[in-house]
């Protein structure tokens, strides 16, 4: 029995470690100054996918990522940890996508990947921070969805049982396949790279990476076809151009502000008994406390 699991993973700027040079003078983000990383919750998703694969005979895990050429790193990183392969969806036509246009493009690529049983994605990406792409991909494909997943508890050929972590509790739900699942950061961390797999897939590359490197390893890629990472552009997916990129994005960014705080007038106080007592008296008199 074949059982196809696809993980959606995004390469993101590391917004958790933003330095001084991360913002340009005009208030836009200087992406070049930020390290590009595997979106953290997508790693949680990958882990769930690999665990699921290990429980189902004949199951495979593939990763789909949409992004610039360098996002091929996401696919290699996934293969080092146990994915069987992946696809990079890349092209200028996808630039400027909001979450709807992103989901449309991903859904077109997923359709081309054949019959899929489970799609696992992260709950949220740390740059756009919307958590919208998972549910929108599900809607575009007509799949049901289970969001905020912490653990895939059970999966048969027809049904999947998942534990969800909500703001104020947990829920265990069961639904029929195919299904889209979005995974929370409260799920187990992803396993590290596997030494053997890292050796095996080190040279895995997309066509443009091979061309850029200028190396002539043609031989290797012919002998080991699994080292070829498929790179799809718009021409490779069945699509309607009006739903892609800017024209497929109902939301428009009107304005972006770099967050700067304006100093207000403040009063400096030392920890001396006198000043502390004066402060408490002042707060009591003006009814802030008491």
């Amino acid at each position, binding site marked *: 029995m074949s059982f196809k699991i696809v993980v959606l993973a995004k390469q993101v700027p590391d917004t958790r470690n933003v330095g001084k040079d991360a913002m340009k003078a005009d208030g836009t983000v200087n992406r070049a100054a930020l390290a590009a990383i595997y979106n953290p919750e997508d790693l949680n998703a990958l882990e769930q996918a690999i665990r699921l694969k290990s429980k189902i005979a004949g199951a495979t895990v593939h990763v789909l990522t949409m992004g610039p050429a360098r996002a091929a790193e996401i696919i290699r990183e996934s293969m080092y940890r146990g994915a069987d392969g992946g696809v990079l969806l890349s092209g200028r036509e996808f630039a400027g996508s909001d979450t709807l246009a992103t989901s449309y493009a991903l859904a077109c690529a997923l359709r081309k990947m054949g019959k899929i049983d489970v799609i696992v994605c992260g709950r949220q990406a740390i740059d756009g921070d919307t958590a919208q792409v998972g549910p*929108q991909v599900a809607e575009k494909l007509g799949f*049901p969805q289970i969001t905020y997943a912490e653990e895939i508890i059970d999966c048969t050929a027809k049904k999947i049982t998942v534990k969800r972590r909500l703001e104020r509790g947990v829920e*265990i739900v069961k639904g029929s396949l195919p299904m889209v699942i979005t995974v929370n950061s409260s799920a187990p961390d992803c396993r590290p790279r596997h030494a053997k797999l890292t050796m095996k897939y080190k040279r895995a590359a997309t066509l443009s990476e091979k061309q850029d490197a200028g190396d002539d390893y043609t031989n290797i890629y012919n002998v080991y076809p699994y080292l070829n990472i498929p790179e799809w552009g718009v021409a490779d997916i069945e699509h309607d151009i009006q739903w892609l990129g800017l024209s497929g994005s109902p939301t428009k960014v009107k304005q972006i502000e770099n*967050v700067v705080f304006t100093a207000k007038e403040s009063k400096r106080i030392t920890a001396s008994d006198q000043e502390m007592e004066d402060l408490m008296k002042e707060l009591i008199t003006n009814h802030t406390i008491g």
Partner: protein
Amino acid sequence: MNNLFVYLEIEDGIVSDVSLELLTKGRTLADQLKCQLEAVAAGYQLDKIGECVFPYGVDTLYIADDKRLAPYTTLPHTSLLVNLFKEEKPQIAFMGATSIGRDLGPRVSSALFSGLTADCTSLEIGDYEDKKQGKVYKNLLYQIRPAFGGNIVATIVNPDCRPQMATVREGVMKKEIRSPKLVGKTVKLDVSKYIPDTDFVVEVIERHIEKSKLNIKNSSIIVAGGYGVGSAENFKLLFELANTLGAEVGASRAAVDAGFADHERQIGQTGTTVRPKLYIACGISGQIQHIAGMQESAMIISINNDPKAPINAIADYIITGSIEEVVPKMIKYYKKNSK
């Protein structure tokens, strides 16, 4: 037609705070746009919902009452909204940025091809000029939200597609009834007309939802501790100060991560947003993600041994000193001077 809709989140027959906050905001915006405020309730045994929401100024309440609609599952609630919105063509629709709203919102927006803006911190009405097309749009919804881990704030608009959809976190907007005497119209929906049976494919097997015990959000004074408090033991000092002042204790993420305080006390972008009368920040440096959740406090006191701590930029009183020294003195002099 062309009204402003709010999706009501309901747990055990009670409308959640975030929905009431959205109704409050929605009422103000609807007045500005001269349109009606409408609410949708989907669940089971919803007879009391009207009493609860009409005081917020709801003109029309749509009710879909069916045993299968509670607890919430994605597809039936999605179909209800999608089909109702196709008929009613709202110009704006709001839902909570909760595990329900963020499950439902994207699905509905995808089905209607209407844009959705996540986690808005402010919603305003204004005009928008599309310079490329030389077109001016009047009275659009400005959806203002942080992104990039809180490092930027973006204003997003939805010029052409309707409804303009947005989610907002609990505690971000104020909750205020318009008048206890208001009564709007109730419309009972025929559930089978809006939701196909095939939507009930996900079944909830088990559910443990706790009522949130802690109520930092509604506390008028908050004593918040950061990594600089140093230990869970030292946090007891903050609890003592909080007890003395009738306050709640909050924490920064670094303090939560270090195990000094429970996660439910976390304040900030990934915690609770608060706007108390007084916020006492103890050993908190004031990183953007923390400030995002407390900058609207009416008064801020910062206690920090670093006179240059970033939080000082937004503080009304800056006390330079250690927690161990300052907090006991505050307790002592409060007790001495209050009757």
